[in-house]
C-alpha cells in the first residue's frame, strides 16, 4: 500500500528516514500516479534522502515551477481575451492557488485553466475565446448538448497554438446536483488580484474544493484534492465564517466531511465515522507500482458520483447513451 507511505511522507516528511529502495520506488510511483510528486518534492526539501532520490525530487520541483509559470501565462492570456467584456474573471483551483501565492500551490500539478464567470456572460465569453484562438474539444453532439443543458461549465475548449485547455464555469456543481451553490455570492465575494483577475474568498475556496471532491466526482485524484483542502484550511482566517459560508451554498455536510477527512489523513489522525472510512479506503487504493487497486470500491464510487450528480431516471438515460457509444467505466 504505497499510498499509505505517500500520505505518511506528506504528513510527516521526517518519516522517510530509513525507507528501503523498494519503498522509495513505491513512494515515487504512487506520488507520480496521484500527481503529488511535486508536492512531495517540496515537502521533502531539506530532508536527508538517498542519492538516487535527490535528482528525482529536484526534477519534480523544476517541473512544478514550470507548470506554475505556464498556468499564470495561460490565465493572463484568458484575461487579455476577455478584457473587453468587462466582467469579473475568477480563477479556480490550481491556477488560483498559484496566482494568490497559497501554500496549496507549492509543487502542485496544474492541468487545465478553470475560471468562473457570471452565467449571463457565457455567450459573450464563448465568442471571445473562440475569436482568441480556443477551439472545441468535444466533437460529439450529445456531449456538447449535455454540457450546455446540465453542466456547471461550458464544454471544454483547447487553445489551438498552446494546446492548453480552459474550463469556463458558471457555478461549482452540475445543475443536476441536489445542492445549488450560490454562484452570485461566489463571484460577489471574490478577491481581486493586482492584475485584475480574481480568486474566490478564503472560505469559498474550501467550499469549492470540498464540493469538487465530495459532491461531484468519483474521488479520482482525491488525495491531491484533499491535500489542497488541508493547505487551504491552514490559511483560513476564520473557521466560523467557513461554516456560515458552507451553509449559504447548501454544502455544510460536505465541508464538514472534507475537514474531518483532511484532519484524519494529513493532520492529527482523528478517528472517523464508518462512512468516511470507506472514502479513505478509496483514497488509498494505489499499490507500489502506481496501479489502482480495490476495483470494487472504485466502481462503487463511480456509481455514487453519478448518483449524486443526477436524478435516477436521467442517470439511467445518460449511462445507457454513454454505454451505447462505447464508454466503459473504470
Amino acid at each position, binding site marked *: 500500500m504505497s499510498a499509505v507511505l505517500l500520505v505518511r511522507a506528506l504528513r510527516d516528511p521526517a518519516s522517510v528516514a530509513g525507507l528501503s*529502495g523498494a519503498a*522509495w*520506488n513505491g513512494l515515487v*510511483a504512487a506520488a507520480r500516479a496521484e500527481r503529488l510528486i511535486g508536492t512531495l518534492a517540496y515537502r521533502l526539501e531539506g530532508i536527508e534522502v*538517498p542519492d*538516487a532520490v535527490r535528482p528525482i525530487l529536484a526534477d519534480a520541483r523544476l517541473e512544478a515551477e514550470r507548470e506554475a509559470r505556464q498556468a499564470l501565462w495561460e490565465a493572463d492570456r484568458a484575461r487579455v481575451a476577455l478584457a473587453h467584456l468587462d466582467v469579473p474573471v475568477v480563477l479556480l483551483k490550481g491556477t488560483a492557488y498559484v496566482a494568490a501565492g497559497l501554500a496549496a500551490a507549492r509543487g502542485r500539478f496544474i492541468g487545465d485553466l478553470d475560471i468562473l464567470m457570471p452565467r449571463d456572460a457565457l455567450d459573450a465569453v464563448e465568442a471571445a475565446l473562440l475569436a482568441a484562438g480556443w477551439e472545441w474539444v468535444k466533437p460529439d453532439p450529445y456531449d456538447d448538448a449535455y454540457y450546455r443543458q446540465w453542466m456547471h461549465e461550458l464544454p471544454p475548449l483547447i487553445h489551438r497554438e498552446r494546446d492548453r485547455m480552459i474550463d469556463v464555469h458558471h457555478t461549482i456543481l452540475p445543475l443536476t446536483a441536489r445542492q445549488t451553490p450560490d454562484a452570485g455570492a461566489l463571484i460577489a465575494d471574490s478577491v481581486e488580484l493586482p492584475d485584475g483577475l480574481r480568486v474566490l474568498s478564503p472560505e469559498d475556496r474550501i467550499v469549492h474544493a470540498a464540493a469538487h471532491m465530495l459532491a461531484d466526482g468519483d474521488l479520482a485524484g482525491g488525495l491531491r484534492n484533499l491535500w489542497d483542502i488541508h493547505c487551504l484550511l491552514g490559511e483560513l482566517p476564520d473557521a466560523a465564517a467557513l461554516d456560515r459560508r458552507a451553509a449559504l451554498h447548501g454544502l455544510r455536510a460536505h465541508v464538514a466531511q472534507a475537514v474531518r477527512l483532511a484532519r484524519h489523513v494529513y493532520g492529527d489522525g482523528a478517528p472517523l465515522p464508518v462512512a468516511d472510512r470507506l472514502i479513505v479506503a478509496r483514497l488509498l487504493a494505489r499499490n507500489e*507500482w502506481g496501479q489502482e487497486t480495490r476495483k470494487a470500491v472504485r466502481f462503487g464510487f463511480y456509481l455514487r458520483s453519478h448518483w449524486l450528480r443526477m436524478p435516477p431516471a436521467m442517470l439511467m438515460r445518460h449511462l445507457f447513451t454513454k454505454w451505447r457509444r462505447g464508454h466503459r467505466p473504470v
Partner: protein
Amino acid sequence: MRHTISLRIGPASFRVGSAWRAPIAQLAELYRGYPEPEDGIADFTVRLEPSRPWRRLVRPSVFITGDHGLADAAPMALRHGLLAAEMGMNLQMALGWRRHLLLHASCVEKDGRALVMTGESGSGKSTLAALLGERGWRFMGDEFTLLDLLTGEAFAFPRLVSLKNAAVGVMEAEVEAARFGPLLLDTAKGDIRHLMPRGEAVARMGEGAVPALLLFPRFGFAADVRDVGPGEVFMRLTQASTNYTALREAGFSTLSRFVADLPAQAIDFANGDEAIALVERLWGELG
C-alpha cells in the same frame, strides 16, 4: 506486478514490471551485461499490463504505461512484448527526463568526440550507428542522445538497437547470432529484431564525449553530401527533441550552443558500405 527487472542504462534507471513472464525473461537475457540501479531506486517505473483484466490470458494484449503514459496508446500483442518493454522505457524518457536535453538521434564516439546522427524513422540513423559500433567506434545509442545542460557534452543511452526490416539482414551479416533478440514479425513498424550493443558500449556508458559532427543521413538515395545551415539545423533539432520546451532557457541555450559549435551535413547513401565510407571521409576532414 508478477515479473520484474531493474536496469540502469546510461544515466537513467528503470524498473519494469509485467503481467507476463516472457518480456521480462527476454529483457534479462538481452540486458545481461547492464548494472542495477543505484540503491535499487529507479528513476522510472514501466508497466506492461493487460488492456482488460481477461486479456492477460485470453488473446493477451499488452498495454504500455508507467510513471508517464499515453491514454490512447494502442495495446500490442504479447509476442511483441519485448518491443513493448523497450517502447515503455522510451516513453518514460521522452515524457519525463529533464536532466539532459534529449535529441532523437543516434550517436557514436571515437577519441572522445561524438558523431550525432538524426533523421526520421527509416533514415538509417540506427543502422548506421550499429554498423559504426561494430567497426571501431563506440556505440552510444540509437534512440536518444543526451546533451549535458551545462557543458554541452553528449552522453550515452546505449539501449538495445532496434533494427527494422532490411536493417535486420544487414546486421545479421555483421554480428554473431548470440547478440540478437527474437525476430518480431509484423509489428506496427514492420519486422523488428533487437541487437545487444558490444560490451565496450555498456562498460563505458557513463563516459561522455564532445560533439564533433552532426549528420542528417538519408538512406535510399545516390551518394551525396550537402551543407545544412544553422537555422535549419536549429529548427530540425527543436522538432527532434521531446523535452526542449520543457527545459525552457536551459534547453534553448544548450541547443543554441550545440548548433553554433557543430558542423552539420546531410548525407545520402544507397548502402551501408557507402555510408561508412562517407562518414569516415567527413570525419577525417574535421581535422
